[in-house]
């Protein structure tokens, strides 16, 4: 059970090489296959996630949530997806058409790219990059541009305001996000995500880096544009923010990308702080799924409990509290590491 997926991959490569392909090309084909798998996983996952979100919100709000379509309403999201796919695709006449149309595509591509470095099990990584964490952060920073494109392209004041908010928010929170992760990197001594997972063989980093975990979690919520930081969407203020003008399919892509990001960030959280795929008994790929889902449940819990923060508070919180705290954590970690080395404990 542990090696199902790696065995399949190996078999595929062997078969391809048997057909006469060179090792490089076989790897390339494997890459494409893995890519398709990720896209499928993402899509199916999002369908489950949206159902889960609706059930969780129902649970928090003392309601039942969807329960008519299929067992426990499990087919509800499928019906929604079918509907969204067959909706009319409106491209308003005053929009900047190219930007308007490509923004959701770019967004989903960027969010799927995040998965390339996440270790989804022992040896189950599309690319085991030696700067994997940096890859995650830098690709993540691209989603800012997608939102900006959506807001600008829509030629709508609500959208523009939402996009401006999104950009300001994401740029400000990227910095504490990255800096809080650096504490973990210092302990693990590597930017390679698989190394970081292995380094947590004895103790999870959440115990060594609790401050980093909290700052990461807050900053990640803001990066994901989820409540209480859902500024760009801000339904009660900006109707639907940057997405106001998007219909059916294109809007669904945004939705898909947001949830894809959610899974990716939660998986990164599990990897960085909760020992990644390590765990007793169960196969490694199941452990990471369990951990990721538990973290996502916390994200949902927060979203359905808190009111939305105000924009200026949001910015000052990032720059005046989160950033100094994460920097202080970094300094503290440095001193701690030196102290441990000096004592000979490390």
């Amino acid at each position, binding site marked *: 059970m542990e090696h199902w997926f790696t065995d399949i991959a190996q078999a595929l490569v062997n078969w391809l090489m048997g057909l006469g392909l060179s090792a490089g090309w076989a790897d390339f084909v494997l890459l494409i296959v893995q890519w398709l798998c990720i896209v499928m996983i993402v899509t199916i996952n999002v369908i489950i996630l949206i159902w889960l979100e609706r059930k969780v919100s129902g649970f928090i709000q*003392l309601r039942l949530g969807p329960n008519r379509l299929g067992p426990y309403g499990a087919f509800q999201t499928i019906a929604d997806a079918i509907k969204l796919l067959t909706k009319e695709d409106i491209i308003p006449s005053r929009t900047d058409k190219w930007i308007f149309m490509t923004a959701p595509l770019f967004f989903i591509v960027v969010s799927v790219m995040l998965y390339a470095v996440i270790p989804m099990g022992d040896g189950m990584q599309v690319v085991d990059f030696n700067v994997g964490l940096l890859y995650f952060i830098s690709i993540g920073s691209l989603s800012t541009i997608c939102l900006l494109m959506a807001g600008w392209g829509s030629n709508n004041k609500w959208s523009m305001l939402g996009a401006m908010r999104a950009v300001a928010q994401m740029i400000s929170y990227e910095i504490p996000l990255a800096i809080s992760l650096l504490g973990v990197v210092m302990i693990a001594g590597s930017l390679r995500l698989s190394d970081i997972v292995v380094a947590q063989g004895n103790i999870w980093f959440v115990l060594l880096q609790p401050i980093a975990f909290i700052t990461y979690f807050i900053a990640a919520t803001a990066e994901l544009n989820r*409540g209480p930081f*859902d500024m760009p969407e801000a339904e009660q203020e900006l109707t639907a923010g940057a997405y106001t003008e998007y219909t059916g399919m294109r809007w669904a892509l945004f939705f898909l990308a947001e949830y894809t990001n959610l899974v990716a960030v939660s998986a990164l959280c599990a990897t960085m702080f909760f020992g990644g795929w390590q765990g007793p008994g169960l196969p490694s790929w199941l452990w990471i799924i369990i951990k990721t889902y538990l973290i996502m449940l916390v994200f949902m819990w927060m979203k359905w409990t808190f*009111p939305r923060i105000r924009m*200026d508070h949001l910015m000052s919180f990032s720059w005046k509290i989160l950033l100094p705290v994460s920097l202080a954590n970094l300094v503290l970690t440095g001193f701690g590491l030196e102290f441990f080395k000096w004592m000979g404990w490390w």
Partner: protein
Amino acid sequence: MLQTDQYIINIGPQHPSTHGGLHVEALMDGENVVDAIVHLGYVHRSIEKIAESRTYPQFVPYASRLDYLASHLPTLGYCQAVEKMMGIEVPERAEYLRVIMAEFSRISSHLIFIGSMAIDLGATTGLIYCLRDRERIMDMFEMTSGQRMIASYMRIGGIAEDVPETFYAAARSFLDDLPQMIDEYNGLITGNEILQCRIKGVGTLSAEDAIAYGVTGPNLRACGIDYDIRKAEPYGIYDRFEFDVPLGTKGDSWNRYIVRLEEIKESARIIEQALDALPQGDIRTKVPRVLKPESGWEIYHRIESSKGELGYYIVADGGNKPYRLHVRAPSFINLMVLPIISRGGKLQDIIANIATLDPVLGESDR
């Protein structure tokens, strides 16, 4: 040096946070509000004109559709206005039941206020909890009048029906559970730091401005002015009850919220006293089938509705229909200060201010 452009953003008439058809035209400088212009009339249903073609009792249902969040209050005001003009006495039992219903209405309206404020600030769950508890009041209304929300329960000369036996138990158990509910709201909404940041010191209205602009009700009391018509000019039998008037200090959104939260408790106190003292007897006096106030009679009667001073100005011409009926709608007047308290704030503050001014558009537009 650098300079910035201002732009106009239209909030409404279809917008999730405008409590109906309200349209706020905000002149913005980035995220800062330079000015706000309020456009009303999207729910203007010509009630005042319709009143001129309805007989006096026929207008009662229309009155209840003014403030649909607390439908007993506007009907109470209207019935009392006509009774006062005609000199009709209302039986004791009816008076008490009127108070009970009116105060339950006030609680239900304030519950909607708390919930809709929570949802306007982004906390969806707050609304659901308030609506859950409001359902119990709706049940009581349905029990007594057959309608959940818009019960034309008050009638000229009394009330429509006596309450059923089950009502007392339902009312008592609601009152018993109320402290627990309020604890829950405090945990979920009041105590939330983000929410406090959002509404503390936001939308501050000075006491002078409040009086000058005719602001009444909880919005006025949030500024620290002790003015409650139930105390100042008691109507009905309100002088028999003991209750406090919760006051704010600063007149900001937070005070407006807290005042309403406290008012729920005071209303519960009134209901408890009324339930204890509820006498047996008639629920309606004999009122002539056709009410014909004499020509030239006119009256301005006002009550403390959940939104503020709700007044009826009725002019009679000797016929069975009002010659002129004007509603002094508290929401209408209260909304006037929205630009004043929103200027200089952020875009998100406009939403918070609309929510805490608690306008009900059906009443403000009539």
